[in-house]
């Protein structure tokens, strides 16, 4: 039987990641209570992405996986980015008919009487 060369992550690392995730959770709740204007969402998402990265790298062994598996993981987020970017670009540049979304109407710019959408 072939020898396994899989990397075994130690409980110590798991415990540290757990601690970091708990700290991150407390941090994001506290940060939400402070008014930072548009930066609230940026900070919340930054903490969430950091927590996600920790989970993928250590709990899900992403750090120790083969390059092929790493490629698959990264490609998942790449496709997600395509979906988000293209859809938001569409919504952000479309001249809406009755849809009231995407605010900031500037009637002088869009077609007559039709507010221009802007992200």
């Amino acid at each position, binding site marked *: *039987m*072939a020898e*396994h060369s*899989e990397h*075994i*992550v*130690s*409980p110590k690392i*798991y*415990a540290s*990641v*757990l601690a970091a*995730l*708990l700290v991150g*959770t407390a941090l*994001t*709740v506290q940060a*939400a*209570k*402070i*008014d*930072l204007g548009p930066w*609230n*969402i940026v900070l*919340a*998402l930054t*903490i*969430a992405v950091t*927590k*996600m990265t920790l*989970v*993928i790298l*250590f*709990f*899900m062994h992403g750090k120790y*996986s*083969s390059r*092929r*598996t790493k490629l*698959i*993981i990264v*490609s*998942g*987020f790449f*496709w*997600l980015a395509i*979906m*988000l970017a293209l*859809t*938001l670009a569409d*919504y952000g540049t479309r001249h809406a008919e*009755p849809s*009231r*979304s*995407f*605010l900031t*109407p500037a009637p002088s710019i869009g077609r007559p*009487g039709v*507010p221009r959408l802007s*992200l």
Partner: protein
Amino acid sequence: MHRTGELYGQFQTLEQQKESATLGMWTFLITEILFFGGMFLAYTINRHAYPTAFGVGGNMLDLNLGFANTIVLIASSFTMAMSVWSAQTSRKKAIPVWLLATLILGSVFLGIKVVEYKQKFDHHLIPGHNFDIAYCSNNPSVCGLSGKALEDERKEIAEAVEAEKANAEQLNISQPGAAGITAVNAHAQLYFSLYFGMTGLHALHMIIGAGLLIWLIYESFKGRFDANYNTPVENIGLYWHFVDIVWIFLFPLLYLINRHLA
């Protein structure tokens, strides 16, 4: 599948066999990323379109319950990781114990979710005919609302009404119901539809995960997993961590974004 730890004919080494299982699981998970991604996208677009109504909706969620659930789910990810470690190091007796801990934490999460859903039902926040964003501020005793919290909620709803009015005026929309509390109700329903859609889909994944855990506990109790063969533990672990990641994003997006206004 049940011939454990054996090398199948199409693979050259056990290592290669294991890696293709991991690769396959990740391929499934990226379809899941895009599946949930679609809902996050719908949320982003609508939140951007109706920020005030979404803010009012978000502040009506119970922050303490959401926070508790985040802690519980992160802890369950840790116990899941420990069961994978137990399997990899052939600690056969520890595997079902860690798995059981994961199952219990997962069930606690779902239990808290049930309490939250029930609360939203009582507060008339289920999208549909009886939806009423102002129900709690009009019937504070039913919702246990008083003092500053009640004032804040009334103020917030009043502000949202004003914002909808300004929005309708700006866009030259004059149909009845396009502004005022009707509009706030309509857009807050959008928020709660997304809330129930996203947390519901997440909860469904948790329920499926719990079912898989029960099977794993049974198999590991029979001593099926060790250092040589632990692919099911590892792959269901990946699934469980993925579900945790979804919640890591749902919690701030649904519960936290407008907290500073309250």
